[in-house]
C-alpha cells in the first residue's frame, strides 16, 4: 500500500486536517477501480438506461461532496450564485482537481438557450473503454455527467446532464460531450428574480410577460418546497 508508515495516525477523521489536494492517484489504479464499478453495476441491471442511471448516481455523490470541498479549499469560502460562475467553476476548478487539466471546451448550445456543453477529446473515464456494438449509445461518461449534475444541483442550479459520443472527422476516437440542460426555473436570471421579489415587497406587483411569469412561478414553487 502506498504511504504506509508515512501517514500520521489520527484517532478520528475529524482530527485530521482537510487534504490540500496535492497528491495524485495512479491512473491505472483508478482505471481498475472504475472498471470494477462498471462491471459490478452491469450485473445489477437489465438495460442500458438503468446502467447509465446507476453510474450517474455514483457520480452524483461525488459531485455533491466535491462542490462543498472545493468551494472551501480552492475558492476561499465563496459560493457561486451566478449561472456562468458555476459553469466555469465546473469547467476549470472541478475538472482540474479531478482530471488534472481544465476541460477542453465549454460552449453554449446553439439550438436552446438553456443548454451548455462541456467537451473533452479524451475523457479520463473513457480512456480505456470501448463500447461493444450491442450496447448501442451507452457511455461511461454518465459517471462524469453525474458529478456535474451533483455539483450543479447542490449549488442550486438543477439540471439534466447527459454524456454523449460525438465523432470528430479524421479521428478514430469520438470525443465526449457532457450536455447540460438546465431546469426551466434556472433560466430566468437571478437578478431578474430578485428585482421581482423587491418590487413585490414594495407592493408594486410587476406585470410580467406570461412566459417569464411562468418561470417565476416555477422558481417559487421550487424554492418553497
Amino acid at each position, binding site marked *: 500500500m502506498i504511504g504506509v508508515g508515512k501517514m500520521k495516525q489520527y484517532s*478520528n*477523521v*475529524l482530527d*485530521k486536517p*482537510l487534504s490540500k489536494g496535492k497528491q495524485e492517484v495512479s491512473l491505472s489504479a483508478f482505471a481498475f477501480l472504475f472498471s470494477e464499478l462498471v462491471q459490478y453495476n452491469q450485473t445489477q441491471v437489465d438495460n442500458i438506461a438503468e446502467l447509465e442511471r446507476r453510474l450517474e448516481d455514483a457520480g452524483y*455523490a461525488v459531485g*455533491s*461532496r466535491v*462542490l*462543498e*470541498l*472545493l*468551494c*472551501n479549499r480552492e475558492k476561499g*469560502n*465563496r*459560493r*457561486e*450564485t451566478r449561472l456562468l*460562475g458555476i459553469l466555469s467553476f465546473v469547467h476549470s476548478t472541478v475538472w482540474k482537481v479531478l482530471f488534472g487539466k481544465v476541460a477542453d471546451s465549454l460552449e453554449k448550445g446553439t439550438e436552446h438557450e438553456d443548454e451548455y456543453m462541456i467537451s473533452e477529446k479524451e475523457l479520463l473515464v473513457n480512456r480505456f473503454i470501448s463500447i461493444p456494438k450491442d450496447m448501442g449509445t451507452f457511455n461511461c461518461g454518465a459517471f462524469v455527467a453525474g458529478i456535474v449534475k451533483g455539483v450543479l444541483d*447542490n*449549488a*442550486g442550479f438543477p439540471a439534466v446532464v447527459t454524456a454523449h459520443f460525438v465523432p470528430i472527422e479524421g479521428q478514430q476516437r469520438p470525443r465526449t460531450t457532457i450536455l447540460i440542460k438546465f431546469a426551466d426555473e434556472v433560466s430566468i436570471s*437571478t437578478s431578474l*428574480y*430578485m428585482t421581482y*421579489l423587491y418590487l413585490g415587497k414594495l407592493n408594486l406587483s410587476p406585470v410580467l410577460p406570461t412566459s417569464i411569469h411562468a418561470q417565476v412561478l416555477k422558481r417559487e414553487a421550487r*424554492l418553497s*418546497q
Partner: protein
Amino acid sequence: MANTACFMIVARNDIPIYEAEVGSAAKREDAAQLHQFILHAALDVVQDLAWTTSAMFLKSVDRFNDLVVSVYVTAGHTRLMLLHDSRNEDGIKSFFQEVHELYIKILLNPLYLPGSRITSTHFDTKVRALARKYL
C-alpha cells in the same frame, strides 16, 4: 456573563441535521421549542439573502426580542444557524468557519448520506468545544 445560544445545522431540504444548546444561561423549560421556532422562521429570510451575495457568512439576518440569528450558508446550501444574544461578530465568524470545516469532514465520509442526521459524538464534542472557545 450568562449567555443564551442555540446552534443548528439545516440541510438543503430544510431538515435539521444537527442541534445543540451551547449557551451558559440556565435552561428555561420552553427554550428548546422557542429557539427552534425562531430559527425556523428565519429560513425564508436566509433563502432570499443567500442569492444576493457570494459570501458564506450572512451576519445577522433576523432578530426576536434580544435574540439574534446569524447564518452561514455553505456552497451546497447547508445552513449553519446560530441564535445568540451576544454581540461578537468576529467570534461567530470564526466559529462558523471551523464548524464548516468539521461539516466538510463529515460530508466526505462515504458512509454519510448527505442530508441525514449527524450522529457522530466526536462532532458534537468538537462543536461544543468550539462554542466555548469563540462564543
